């Protein structure tokens, strides 16, 4: 039974769940009746010595992570028949089968030697056995949320067969003020919006940050000299360095290569924007495209061999793929409307993009040959997708219309299901999802 449920969850995550209406591109129906989240039980984590509030706080974040995927549903405590008095109490599987729990998570928290320690076990209720071995994790008290995310990542991974994404961070642009006097700051947060830290002040415009593959650096565009320039900033101490510029030009849209050693970016000269590649500190720039059109928003393939980007060489924004060393690109987007901001999935199989059509914006995905286009969201202004480290969830910017309309971060899974606002970091745009943390 549980094995079947596991397979079902994995299949549901992959299968197309978005039904596009046939009468036009502006309407998306998400068939929400199909997926039944997997019901699980998780009694309050046991206090195994000095746990204090960490027992309930950590359990709360584990539940928020799992239920936040839309793939899991926690059964409430008052339904539970068996009570656990100790971490190693034998499981009465019949008691959990009786309340239709498919998975059972038992956890305990303690504080030892200045560390918070979490241990947990995951049980397959219907087959009546433990799924994987029990695990114990420890961290300093201020990192308690990371402990919870790591527990949830293990559980998610064991049940879905996919790697998790909860213990990860997102760099974004924090926004305050009205639309015609917007103030922007670079910030990082946990994937769920917690622990916001600012990397810059609001004295100048900052745009479109990108995490390095290891999550230690961020590339972004800054107007601090009065003109768009590329800057790299160290996440741990906010020390930044402007990359060398070519006088009279604008440089923007920087992205790291998968090995973190080089970058690809847009350089504008005399009104024409092309793609260049250089070392991660801006040395030895090489021109990759040479056309009178706008070439921007590049993204490396996970193996570093190719670059997907947008160009309006056909007359409007469309998506192209070329070798990472340049050369003739191949157009992959052919639908109605404009296609921009392509981002290569970390799994390599899909390209996420922003589509504009009929005065609306959409976030979508397509295969790397342009086939199987699926639109996942639609609104007045959705843009700038970024991938979760496991390639199953996309975060993006949604901006509301009008003078008071602000930008917020949303996430959606690649079936178009589980659209939700990300945490509460205030006004926010241009997310870039970092790697799963070690």
């Amino acid at each position, binding site marked *: 039974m549980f094995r079947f449920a596991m397979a079902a969850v994995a299949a549901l995550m992959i299968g197309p769940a978005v039904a596009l209406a046939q009468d036009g591109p502006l309407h998306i129906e998400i068939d929400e009746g199909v997926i039944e989240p997997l019901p699980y039980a998780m009694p309050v984590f046991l206090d195994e010595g000095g746990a204090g509030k960490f027992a309930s706080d950590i359990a709360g974040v584990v539940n928020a992570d799992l239920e936040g995927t839309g793939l899991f549903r926690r059964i409430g405590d008052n339904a539970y028949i068996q009570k656990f008095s100790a971490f190693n109490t034998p499981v009465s599987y019949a008691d959990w089968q009786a309340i239709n729990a498919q998975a059972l998570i038992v956890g305990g928290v303690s504080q030892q030697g200045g560390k918070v320690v979490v241990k947990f076990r995951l049980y397959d209720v219907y087959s009546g056995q433990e799924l994987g071995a029990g695990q114990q994790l420890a961290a300093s008290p201020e990192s308690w949320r990371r402990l919870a995310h790591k527990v949830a990542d293990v559980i998610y991974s064991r049940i879905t067969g996919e790697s998790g994404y909860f213990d990860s961070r997102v760099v974004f642009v924090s926004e305050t003020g*009205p*639309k*015609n*006097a*917007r103030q*922007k700051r670079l910030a990082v947060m946990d994937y769920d919006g917690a622990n916001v830290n600012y990397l810059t002040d609001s004295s100048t*415009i900052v*745009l*479109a940050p990108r995490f390095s593959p290891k999550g230690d650096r961020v590339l972004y*565009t800054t*107007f601090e000299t*009065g*003109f*768009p320039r590329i800057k790299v900033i160290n996440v741990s101490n906010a020390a930044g360095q402007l990359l060398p510029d070519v006088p*009279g030009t*604008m440089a*923007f*849209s920087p992205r790291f290569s998968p090995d973190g050693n080089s970058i690809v970016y*847009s350089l*504008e000269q*005399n*009104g*024409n*924007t092309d793609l260049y590649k250089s070392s991660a500190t801006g040395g030895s720039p090489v021109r990759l495209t040479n056309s009178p059109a*706008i070439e*921007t*928003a590049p993204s490396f393939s996970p193996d570093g061999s190719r670059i997907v980007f*947008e160009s*309006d060489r056909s007359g*409007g*924004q469309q998506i192209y793929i070329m070798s990472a060393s340049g050369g003739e690109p191949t157009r992959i987007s052919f639908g109605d409307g404009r296609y*921009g*901001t392509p981002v290569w999935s970390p799994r390599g199989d899909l390209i996420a993009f*922003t589509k*504009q059509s009929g*005065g609306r914006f959409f976030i979508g995905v397509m295969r790397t040959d342009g086939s199987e286009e699926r639109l996942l969201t639609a609104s*007045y*202004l959705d*843009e*700038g997708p970024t991938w979760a480290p496991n390639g199953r969830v996309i975060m993006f910017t949604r*901006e509301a*219309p*009008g*003078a008071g*309309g602000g930008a917020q971060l949303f996430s959606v899974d690649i079936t178009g299901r589980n659209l939700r606002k990300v945490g509460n970091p205030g006004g926010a745009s*241009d997310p870039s999802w970092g790697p799963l943390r070690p």
Partner: protein
Amino acid sequence: MNFAMKAAIGLAVLGLAACNNPDKYGDGVVDPGGAYGSGAYGAGAGGVSQGNINDPNSPAYFNGRVGDMVHFLVDQSTLSGEAIQILSGQAQWLNSHPQYSAIIEGHADEQGTREYNLALGARRASAVQEYLISQGVSSARLRTVSYGKERPLATCAAESCFAQNRRAVTVISLGAGS
């Protein structure tokens, strides 16, 4: 004498522009260095006094009477006939006031993705720059910058506002340029 003629032409150009596009200047009150004269967030005229709008040698006159701004169609950087008339006035003013240099700011409406709009704004600024150069303004006195969709003038979610935001603004300051 020569200068006065040019000033008169500049005024005539403004008159045309105002007639063709009554929305552009709102209620007709000019606010040099303020609502539209400043371009993006207080870039202004480099700390230069804006002066009196009735003084043809003042930045206020350039901004308000010659017209510091031209507009573009959706996703376009082509100069309209109206834009060329305004830019002719700008070129004449700049040619007769060599002590000023200019930064041309390109802007886009919010109906586009962020980085594309940055590139699009650069195209618009460059189109203005090229025209001014073609009218005899030294390229050394002109720089361009794009703000993409980061600095809208009008914030409603309708074409009437988008049209105001698709613009290039010539922001003058004292100095002979680089």
